[in-house]
């Protein structure tokens, strides 16, 4: 049996709800004087970060430490990767050291899948973002935030997001967050609408389980949650829109646009935010914006994932795809 979390699309509805419910209990640990559980004592987790990250790396590290795992941090800068070492050799080095799980972020889409299925390593592999492919724990923490805000903390236990209308706005083309969210939210029964300029939508988007629109203003009144994405300039090698000002005017969220959303609707952002580009300071600092909450929820979700994958003798979460193709 495989014990990896590679893609949000691998999760069944029941798996996803189990992770969200477990995270709800994990969140309570943060309110205790001693924020620590002995559950992963003696297990070693490596955070293998080939790409820059602040919040995901810190969040994973906090989650691992709260579960008493031994944590090894590895960043590509200043390691033998900068001397030309391959992923395979790095993996075999980690295997020789006897690690139980690898949390990997990599610039190349598919790197975590390769690591999980290549036989280089026995450890559990958790995808912390690969290229423009997937970022499953981000999708889970977003779904967790939505369930808490839109369904309720206690009322949400055991529930999915059936019938909730979620709008994801911005650079879908380069966004692993958007891909993971579309997959997971669809599994959880939500209706997803992607809003972006045509140049920032990937080829083949018509096969995704979601609606697509080019017009933000007509979508906002029909949204329970609006997720703004950052325009990923570091991945852009061509001109996708004429000017930043034009993008910001057509697809940025400001106070006037936020007023068109239903009373209960929330504004989400996976971070880092670029204020003045996709979101104005007025919106980012308002009560309806859940950015800080999402970060706190990230620790709970990652604790839940680590517990469910590593806490027993076999994982509680099933992964059909990675198992099949092994």
């Amino acid at each position, binding site marked *: 049996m495989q014990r990896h979390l590679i893609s949000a699309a691998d999760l069944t509805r029941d798996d996803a709800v189990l992770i969200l419910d477990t995270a709800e209990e994990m969140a*309570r640990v943060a309110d205790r004087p001693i924020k620590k559980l*002995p559950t992963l004592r003696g297990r070693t987790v490596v955070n293998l970060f080939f790409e820059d990250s602040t919040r995901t790396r810190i969040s994973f590290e906090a989650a691992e430490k709260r579960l008493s795992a031994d944590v090894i941090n590895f960043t590509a800068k200043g390691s033998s990767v900068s001397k030309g070492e391959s992923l395979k050799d790095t993996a075999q080095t980690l295997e020789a050291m006897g690690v139980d799980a690898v949390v990997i972020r990599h610039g190349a889409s598919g790197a975590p899948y390769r690591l999980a299925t290549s036989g280089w390593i026995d450890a559990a592999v958790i995808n912390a973002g690969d290229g423009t492919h997937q970022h499953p724990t981000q999708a889970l923490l977003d779904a967790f935030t939505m369930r808490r805000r839109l369904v309720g903390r206690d009322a949400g236990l055991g529930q999915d997001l059936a019938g909730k209308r979620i709008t994801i706005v911005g650079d879908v083309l380069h966004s692993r967050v958007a891909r993971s969210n579309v997959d997971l939210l669809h599994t959880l029964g939500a209706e997803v609408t992607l809003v972006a300029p045509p140049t920032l939508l990937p080829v083949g988007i018509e096969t995704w389980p979601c609606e697509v629109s080019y017009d933000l203003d007509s979508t906002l009144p029909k949204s329970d949650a609006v997720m703004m994405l950052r325009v990923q300039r570091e991945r852009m090698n061509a001109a996708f829109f004429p000017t930043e000002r034009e993008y910001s005017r057509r697809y940025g969220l400001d106070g006037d646009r936020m007023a068109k959303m239903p009373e209960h609707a929330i504004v989400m952002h996976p971070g880092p935010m670029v204020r003045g580009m996709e979101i104005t300071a007025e919106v980012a600092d308002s009560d309806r914006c859940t950015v800080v909450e999402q970060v706190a929820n990230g620790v709970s979700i990652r604790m839940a994932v680590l517990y469910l994958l590593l806490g*027993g003798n076999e994982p509680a979460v099933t992964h059909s795809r990675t198992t099949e193709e092994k």
Partner: protein
Amino acid sequence: MDKLDTQASDARPVLEGPDIARVLTRIAHEIVERAKGADDVVLLGIPTRGVFLARRLAAKLEQITEKQIPVGSLDITMYRDDLRLQPPRALARTEIPGDGLDGRLVVLVDDVLFSGRTIRAALDALNDIGRPRAVQLAVLVDRGHRELPIRADYVGKNLPTSLRETVKVQLAEEDGRDTVLLGAKPAAPDAQR
């Protein structure tokens, strides 16, 4: 329903609804007696059925003392010593009453006391949550076969059992009726019954 009936048919009830009510009343009186009024008592039930028993005990204590008794739940899943022997279990709710546990008399409540490992895990969990003045243990049934040096302070019924028997507590909140069943352990799956 079928499964429950067949299970019930070869299981013998050792405590029925009225017995359970009487036993809880007695334990409530014992707690008041030993704690000299139950002023600083906090009841913590161990999920699933310990929580219902703790709530019932709290109601009885409130009748006796005419004071509000804080009641909560303590999930011990993450502290189990057999976590690595089986797939991860779903977590249950831990709910600590608002005033916390520091300096209080915590009475842990569970349905069956068997190996004592659950209580060991509960003591570890308590350690991370606060520092009670003292910790006591109340159980509905003590079936023996301890594997750790742990004993209960309040016992509903001492039930001598063999390791080939199972003790099943059913409570109205979860199972629709109050009873304690003593039955034979189901045969291993490969052996035909």
